[in-house]
Every structure is written in structure tokens, then in C-alpha cells.
């Protein structure tokens, strides 16, 4: 991975020289409430200006009010990158996450063809193009592309494909290719996993600044898969609940900033995210997906002092308790007048802090989700937690601890779970994980 520091990671997003439709509009933007002059100043003050302008970011710009001026005409490159897009890519606003189960009768060739078709399709979709005719010329033909993103812009779409433990088996003759750390996750304390929301042989994470663009991607990939793989579970995410460099830290549905101390910068990505296996998986990573339901109504009536105690941070600023600003380093040793710790050792932040976990970090790329109402008429919502790391054991260690003691457990339930190996990005003219089939 020595070339990595020299090579942009991923390459700088490019604005299409021409709009992907002939509708006569060249650029479309979402404007934040404080767009315009506030933009430049906020960028400088966002902490790590260099990182904000590095190739890792999409050219989105945080404003003073935390809103983002988004250029829907941006396309994120897919081929010829060291890693798949959608991991170090600055988080887009919306996500659709789906897992698939390979059909009983699916063969190695079926899997190969599906990955090749998906790769080609993702290459098209991320450029804002369709994947075949929307309106075929022959009256009896069925459209190649379902069409709902026709005329929309790329919206920084990324589609990240993962291969689950079930792929690397004797069934497909692929057991010898299994990435060394890939295994089904063990049962962990606090698991309330539902079978219908757990596992999968393939995963697709589609993220975009336009929800319809993200949905269109998964819709069409699922359609392509139908005879080879069946949909297993799917979550629609919104309001990115993790920050990339230069982004204002967003909030989860509990109202707290989430992901303040995320993995950032090339050095941290190399250390915590990308694998350095000397084989086909070099430059890959592992994806862990957890659907976490929040008992919203219960949380909403919790008093503010307890809420802040649960997270270990203030609600408004997001500062560690006892500190002033969000990015201040938490002082886990500080005590109050009665000798009690200012930050409870069982608070979510203290439990998850790298200082208390052998320095380990995982890249969090979460989104909020809602499924409407549950059967009791209560809000059915939570966090679609998606994380990337170079060893799933890092998550297992962390969650085994959090699942036992985290004060947050009273208000959350881990109901869905899956782990996938994320191959490196394909080169032009090849497809994802092609090495497995040669």
C-alpha cells in the first residue's frame, strides 16, 4: 500500500463537462440557509483545512449553520481507484443499504456474471447514466433501466458492494480466497437480532445527495440479480449521521452529534480501514452493518442531564462533559467536587473512546433511518450503523463491551447485523473481485 500516500484516495471527484441530460440545466444545487459568503469562512474554520480540500472530500462545503451546499452535478469516479468509493468518500446525504442472499441454485458463473453486470452498471450509474434503454424501441421489449433517475444528476452517487462469508465457500470453489478476518459475527451482549435483518451473501450500499438516485441504483441492481440472488433486507437512510473531513458533525435521531472523533486523513485510513493483505484483497476493507432501533419516545422524555450523562457530551455543542468545544479532548480522569467522574466511565463516549480501547478506531458511516410506526403506533426509527475497518474483531471487541455496560443500551436495540468483505475498486475493463474467477 505504499503507492497509496502518493496517489489521491479516492481520486478527486470530477464535475461532468456536460450535464447528463439535455434538459438545459447545467447545475443544480441545494442551498443551505447560510449559503454564499459564509461558505468560505466556515471551510477555513472547519478544522483541518488541508483535509477538507484533499482528494478525500467531495466538493461540498460546510456553512456556518451546518448546512451544506451540494452540487448535484458531481460524479465520484468508480474505476481505477485504490479502494471502492463510498467509504472514504465524504458522506452523502442519503443512503439505501441492502443485502442479498444467493439463490440455492446459483453457480460460480452466475456469481461472476452478476458481479460483472453490477460493476458495469455501477460505472454507468455513478456517471448519472442509465443502464440500458428506459423506453425500448421495440413495443414488446422490457426496459433495461427502470427510469426513475432519468434526467437526474449523478448526485455524487457511490455504490459499494460487499461479499459475505457465504461467498467464500466450497460451494463456489472460493474457500481459498476468503479474506483472513472474514467470518460470521459472534453473538454479542445486547444483541436483539431479527433473522430477517441479519446476514446476507452480498451487500450494496448506495449513497447519494439525491435519495431517488440512491434508490434507483439499488432498485436496478436488485432487478439484475433476481434469478441469482434474492433481496434479504433493506434500509433507507437519511440525514447522514457521520461526518467526513470539513463537514459539520451531523446529529442522530436522539439529537446528539454523532461521529465527532471519526477516522480521518490518509494515515488513519491506512492504519484503521484498509487491509494490507498481500493478495487480491489488498486495499479492501470490512463492512459491518448494524440496524439499531432507538426507543424514541422513552428517550425523548429523559431529562437533559441524564441524556448528556448517557452520551458523555453536551447536547447543543457536543463538547465532552467538562470541556467547552466539540473537538476538545475529553478528560476521562476529571472528577467533580464529590470525587465522581465528570464523564461517566459507562457513557457511550467513554466506552467507545480509542483511549479506552487500545487506541482502536473504526470508520463510522452511519445514517438515520425510519420505518414509520411499529405495531404499537410508536415511532419505528433508529440508526443504520455502517462501519469500515481492517479487522472485524475491532468492532466485536468494542461492541462486546458496549453491549454489556453502555448507558445508551437502555434506549437502543441492535436488531440487524451483517459483515462483508469489501474488495478493492475494479479497473477499467474489469469487474469487482475478478481475481476470484481467474
Amino acid at each position, binding site marked *: 500500500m505504499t503507492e497509496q500516500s502518493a496517489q489521491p484516495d479516492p481520486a478527486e471527484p470530477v464535475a461532468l*463537462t*456536460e450535464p*447528463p*441530460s*439535455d434538459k438545459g440545466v447545467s447545475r443544480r444545487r441545494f442551498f443551505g440557509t447560510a449559503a454564499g459568503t459564509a461558505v468560505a469562512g466556515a471551510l477555513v474554520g472547519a478544522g483541518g483545512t488541508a483535509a477538507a480540500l484533499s482528494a478525500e472530500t467531495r466538493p461540498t462545503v460546510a456553512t456556518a449553520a451546518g448546512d451544506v451546499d451540494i452540487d448535484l452535478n458531481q460524479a465520484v469516479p468508480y474505476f481505477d481507484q485504490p479502494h471502492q468509493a463510498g467509504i472514504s468518500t465524504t458522506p452523502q446525504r442519503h443512503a439505501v443499504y441492502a443485502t442479498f442472499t444467493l*439463490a440455492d*441454485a446459483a453457480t460460480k458463473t452466475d456469481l*461472476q*456474471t452478476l458481479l*460483472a*453486470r453490477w*460493476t*458495469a*452498471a455501477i*460505472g*454507468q450509474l455513478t456517471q*448519472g*447514466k*442509465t*443502464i*440500458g*434503454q*428506459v*423506453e*425500448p*424501441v*421495440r*413495443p*414488446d*421489449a*422490457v426496459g*433495461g*433501466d427502470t427510469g426513475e433517475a*432519468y434526467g437526474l444528476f449523478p448526485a455524487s452517487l457511490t455504490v459499494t458492494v460487499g461479499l459475505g462469508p457465504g461467498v467464500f465457500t466450497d460451494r463456489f470453489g472460493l474457500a481459498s480466497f476468503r479474506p483472513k478476518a472474514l467470518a460470521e459475527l459472534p453473538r454479542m451482549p445486547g444483541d436483539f437480532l431479527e433473522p430477517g435483518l441479519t446476514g446476507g451473501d452480498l451487500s450494496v450500499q448506495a449513497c447519494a445527495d439525491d435519495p431517488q438516485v440512491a434508490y434507483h441504483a439499488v432498485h436496478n441492481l436488485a*432487478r439484475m440479480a*433476481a*434469478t441469482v440472488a*434474492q*433481496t434479504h433486507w433493506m434500509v433507507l437512510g437519511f440525514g447522514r449521521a457521520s461526518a467526513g473531513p470539513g463537514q459539520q458533525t451531523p446529529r442522530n435521531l436522539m439529537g446528539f452529534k454523532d461521529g465527532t472523533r471519526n477516522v480521518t486523513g490518509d494515515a488513519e485510513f491506512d492504519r484503521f480501514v484498509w487491509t494490507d493483505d498481500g493478495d487480491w484483497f489488498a486495499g479492501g476493507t470490512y463492512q459491518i452493518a448494524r440496524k439499531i432501533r432507538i426507543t424514541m419516545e422513552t428517550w425523548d422524555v429523559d431529562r437533559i442531564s441524564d441524556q448528556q450523562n448517557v452520551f458523555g457530551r453536551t447536547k447543543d455543542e457536543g463538547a465532552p462533559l467538562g470541556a467547552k468545544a466539540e473537538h476538545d479532548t475529553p478528560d476521562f480522569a476529571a472528577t467533580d467536587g464529590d470525587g465522581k467522574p465528570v464523564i461517566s466511565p459507562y457513557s457511550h463516549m467513554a466506552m467507545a473512546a480509542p483511549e479506552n480501547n487500545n487506541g482502536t478506531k473504526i470508520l463510522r458511516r452511519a445514517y438515520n433511518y425510519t420505518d414509520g410506526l411499529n405495531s404499537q403506533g410508536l415511532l419505528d426509527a433508529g440508526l443504520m450503523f455502517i462501519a469500515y475497518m481492517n479487522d472485524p474483531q475491532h468492532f466485536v471487541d468494542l461492541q462486546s463491551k458496549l453491549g454489556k455496560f453502555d448507558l445508551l443500551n437502555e434506549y437502543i436495540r441492535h436488531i440487524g447485523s451483517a459483515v462483508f468483505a469489501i474488495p478493492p475498486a*475494479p479497473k*477499467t*475493463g*474489469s*469487474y469487482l473481485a*475478478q481475481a476470484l474467477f481467474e
Partner: protein
Amino acid sequence: MSPRKPLPTSIRRTVRYRALGAGAAITLAVTLAGCASSAPTAPTGGPASAPVGGDGLAPVSNGAAQVALSLTADGGGTCTLDHTSAPAGPVTFTVTNVSATGITEVELQSDLKILGEKENLAPGLPASTFTVTLGGGSYNLYCPGAATELVPFTVTGDAAPSPTGSTQQLLAKGATDYAAWVVSQTEEMQTSVKALASAIDSGDLAKAKTAYAQSRPFYEKIESDVEGFVLPGFKLDDSAGSLDYRIDMRASSLDDKVGWMGYHAIERDLFSTGKITATTKKYATDLVANVGKLLEVVKTLDYKPEDLANGAASLLEEVQSNKITGEEEEFSHLDLMDFAYNIEGAKQAFAYLQPGLEKVDASLAEQVAAEFKKVDASLAAYRDDTALGGYLSWTKANREKHSRQLSQTVLALQQPLAKIAEKVATAK
């Protein structure tokens, strides 16, 4: 068609444009293909590249002229031949997708008839070949998604003898045989509804329920053709003249002006209220009369090959929309039996097309046949010879438990089956 709540069953199901004959359909396609570069494919913006090919006649080896076709992403997508002509006789096309993510299939066409094709041509996959025997004349390679979609290809030498039309003959024969099969099913239905009416007349509830279950399969097998099931002089959207409404309406399609009638009115009395009344007997008498009218109508229907394909597709749509959901047999829960016979009807339509389809696209025919087998195997798990209708009663609890697997299996059949209509409509 005027919108109406709820929609009559005949419209809710499927609309096929039978009035648009084969000739009209082809004319339309020709017109559109003439300006193929403006067809609604992927917006590319790249300059249109000329359909260039190498010079000279393709060399002959292994008994066939060898032509290489490569697809690249250059200039908005190219589709390039190494030789643009070949001598009459067998021609093998070797197709390699080098880098064209937007082109995943190619077809060899003659006047828009598909002579041969390859699909799933994503970059990185090994080259694939197809061989066709061609007479002298002009052809096109059709590469949907390329900047220039039609690439001309010339065959020198004698023109092929006038086509024996074997593929079309096979397909046409399939359509004719299918029409006869629909008539035979309707005749059996007539016998079965008479038995149902006499069981109801006898007032024997158990016997009537059995007769009901025994009569349902025939209609379920042929209900893809309901758009033709219209009494003379009535419009398609008039429930009063729709034999599909008169025979197979249900609560969700109730037209207050016309009212309850047919199978499901009887089902409601037998399975929900559990009483045979004078009204039930009237329903049964009317049903016999309407099935008699249906028999007269189906004898006049004829089908084109694509009608069979579209009909099979709409039967699967029926399965997904009304059977898996338990909507069809709301009172008797015989939905799985209906499901099985919808599948059977689709399979029959497919089987009549199969000999012709195998000549057009053998791998598609094989794939669809394999998916039918999987659906049959899935359904077999739910057989219950002790239950009325022979299948697990499709109660709410059973639906929640089993519908997902069944639905996914049918979906895997629907995807390839949806491609058949285009193939047979454009087959030479």
C-alpha cells in the same frame, strides 16, 4: 379507459394491445430505429463514432467465417467489427466487451428480425461467441447503448433461399395450438360449473365446497386472456359486459351497478356465511350461463406468439398481486391452488412457444424452463392432499410464514420470462 373505482377485474389484470398487429408493430420499430442515436438510451454526450470495421472478407476457419466484435467505452460507446463482410454460409461472431459499461448485449438483425444474439457482456468477462448461417444480403449488428447502435454487416454470395420460416412456423403453430387448448380448458370449466350448480341445488354444503374447489383451476389457467373475454357489443371497461367480471369478480373489484356474481359470490356464501340460499342458486345458474357464453367467445379468439408470452407474464403478475396476498380466495383460502394453476397456465403458454423460442434464444428458453421447475418444486412443498384444493390453506398465519419464499421464487421466473415477448415478436 375511464378510471373507475374499483377497477374492473379485466382492466386491473392486464392490457395487451391486440389491435396493434404484427405489421404495425414492426413499422413502428423501423421508424424508431431509423433515428436510433436519439433513442432514449443513456445520455452520453460523446461524439458519434462511425461504425467502422476492418476491410475485406472475414477469413473462414473451423467451417465458419470468423468475425470479431469488440465493445469499448470510447466516444460514448463503440461497437466495432474487425471485418464488415463475410461469405455466405456459417458466420461465427466472437464478442468481447473491452470497456463498454453501457453496452451489455448485441444482436444480429435482418430487417429488425433477431437472428442471433449475446447478452451479459460486461467488461472483464471472457469473450463469447454465436454462430449463424447467413445468405447473401445486408444485415446489422445492433448494440443498444452504443453511440452508433446499428453497425452494418454484408454477406456476399447467393441470397439464402426464401426462408422456410421454420422459426415463425413453429411459433405460429404454437399460438394456434394454444388457442385450441384454451377452448378445451373452457369446455372442462363448463362441465365443472354444471357440477357445482347441481351440488348447490342439492343444498349439500360440503359437496358444493368440493365442487367449487374442483371448478376453479380451469379459469385460473386461462385468465391471462380476459381482455378478450367480452360480450359482443360491450366496451372493455364495462363490467356488465365483461365475462371476467361476471365469472371472477371479487370484493375489491365490486362494481355497485352490477353487483356480486360469479365464483366469488358463491365462495362467499359457501365459505363465509356457510349457507346455501336462493341467491346462491341464482349465482350458480348465472355462472353456468356465463361460462357458456365464454366458451362461445374463446372459440373466436386467436393469438400471436407475443400474446402467449405476455399472457404468461400477466399470469405471474396475477400470482404476485392477488394470490400470494390471499386476495383472490378471501373466504375459502384456496389461493395456493389458484397460484398453482396460474403457474400451470403460464407454463402451458410457454411450452407452446418453446420450440420456436429455442431457435431464437436457446439459453433464454432453457433459463425460463429451469425457473419454472424451481417454482414447481417450491409449490410442491405446500401440497396437502387432505386439504380442499390439494394445497396448504392460505390463511393469514400461513401467508406470513411462507409468502416471502414463494414470492422470491416467482420473481426469479418473472425476470427472464418478461424477455420472451420481444424475442418471439421479432423472430425471423
